């Protein structure tokens, strides 16, 4: 089993591990997710119908309404939040959304996580030390 290590910056501290759910599409909060289930509902999104609940969500960044954080916040209250978030483009929407999701989150990586991580890979985040360890799916 091959293991890859990425280094990045802490957005929200803590450690988490889980299965990766990876998308190259940016994610909308309001109008883009169902906070009760964590399912992506946006039409034409490549993850439409899939849930990020208990996954390590790997995505480019946030788009859409200023309700982004409120929708991820609601997903956390419903027990449907991701276990961790890894993203590239830092905006106020995704930063506040990650903070209120209360899950470890990181950005500004030395390598593009969208290239390195595939859906189903096992990902370990140590946000306080800025390290992500990826074990590729067999």
């Amino acid at each position, binding site marked *: 089993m091959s293991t890859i290590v990425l280094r990045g910056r802490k957005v929200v501290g803590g450690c988490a591990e889980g299965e990766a759910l990876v998308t190259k599409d940016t994610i909308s909060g309001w*109008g883009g997710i169902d906070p009760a289930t964590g399912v992506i509902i946006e039409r034409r999104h490549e993850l439409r119908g899939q849930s990020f609940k208990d996954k390590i969500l790997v995505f480019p960044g946030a788009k859409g*309404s*200023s*309700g982004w*954080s*409120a929708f991820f916040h609601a997903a956390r209250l419903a027990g449907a939040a991701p276990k961790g978030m890894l993203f590239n483009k830092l905006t*106020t929407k995704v930063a506040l*959304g990650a903070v*209120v999701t209360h899950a470890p989150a990181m950005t500004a990586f030395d390598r593009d996580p969208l290239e390195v991580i595939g859906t189903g890979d096992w990902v370990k985040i140590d946000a306080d030390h800025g390290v992500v360890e990826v074990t590729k799916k067999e």
Partner: protein
Amino acid sequence: MLDGREGPAVQKAMDLLVRYGEALDAERLVDTHNVCGAMTFGGTRADLMQRGGFHAVFSELNLDSPEVVEIPPARVYTCQLEHGLSLETAHITGGSPEAMQAQRQAEIFFGARGVHMLATCTPYLAGNVPLLGEHCAWMESSAVVYCNAVLGARTNTEGTESTGAASLTGKIPYWGYHIPACRRATHLVEVEIEVDSVMDWGLLGYYVGEMVQEAVPAIKGLKSRPDPIKLKHLGAAAASSGGVEMYHIPGVTPEAPSLEATLGGNQPLAIWRYGRAERRIAYENLNSSAVSREVDFIMLGCPHCTLEQVWRVAQLLERKRLHGNTQLWLFVARALKEVADRSGYTRTIEAAGAHVLTVPQGAKVVATDSAKQAHYLPAMLGMQTWFGSTEDCIAAATTGRWSGGLE
């Protein structure tokens, strides 16, 4: 504040702002005296209401604090943006009695704490007009882009929690559009055709957003000067198709004395042209969901209408009647509705069978003069949506058929 000496709610608010500021890697917080947020939506959450009423709702949803703290009055000028329901016109727009009661109670609770119940996505039309360079903490993408680009005030796209915390502390992270260097244009759009009507400005905004995404564009080559209505539609469209929070029009917007000044001496990272073909693409994208020309619902006022727009619609509907199969709703800030009522516009519009008022049950084919609505309605509510001019929309309302198009 963080040490709790100013009370537990202020302490929780500051704790959130510190976590948020660290997430952004912001160097510090900045003082703000102008907050536009969303306080009145949580009253329908039975779990939180049972835990501690609106104190628990605000603690969790606006301060990210699972611990219930007693909510004090706002420290700085704070406005409620759009509401979920239109209480005054519920007989037309619908809404469960429970949800309406929750909103009524939320207005009383937060009103008593100094949150001004503007109930509009256009606070800048209802008296909240910040000054050039003023630091703000606003939500609502169409209001954020207007605040930055048109007024020259400074805000990022804030959220429910950060605006809640800002209202109790008068602080927000100094990051992004608060920093002068981040406000400069990075990309250039060269307009090669006449852009004149409100519809034209909406189309230009929709195209620009799609091209630049979250970047800051400078738009040059415009031959006619816009008015606030046109810039409202430009910004709302660009914030919908992309994530535009700031733009410049040299000679028009306040931070753009010249193209060179807005670029800060740099070369644009990319240049796009906007000609007839690009206008056509924007128009076709906005109308891509519509098939049937039998329109049953016309929606005007996204973002909320200015008084001038209400007056124009009243003129277009004078001595006319809506077609039997159509409804026409026109959205306006409640403060301006009072003026529309007293000016006789509401009477004229209602005499035609339309309503000055929030999405109906049973509509299938919608017509709108808002690129923002035409962007979101098909995806969110599955409605076929026609986009066109206000005149196209009024014609659809009185005939029941869509006859708009690009010449």
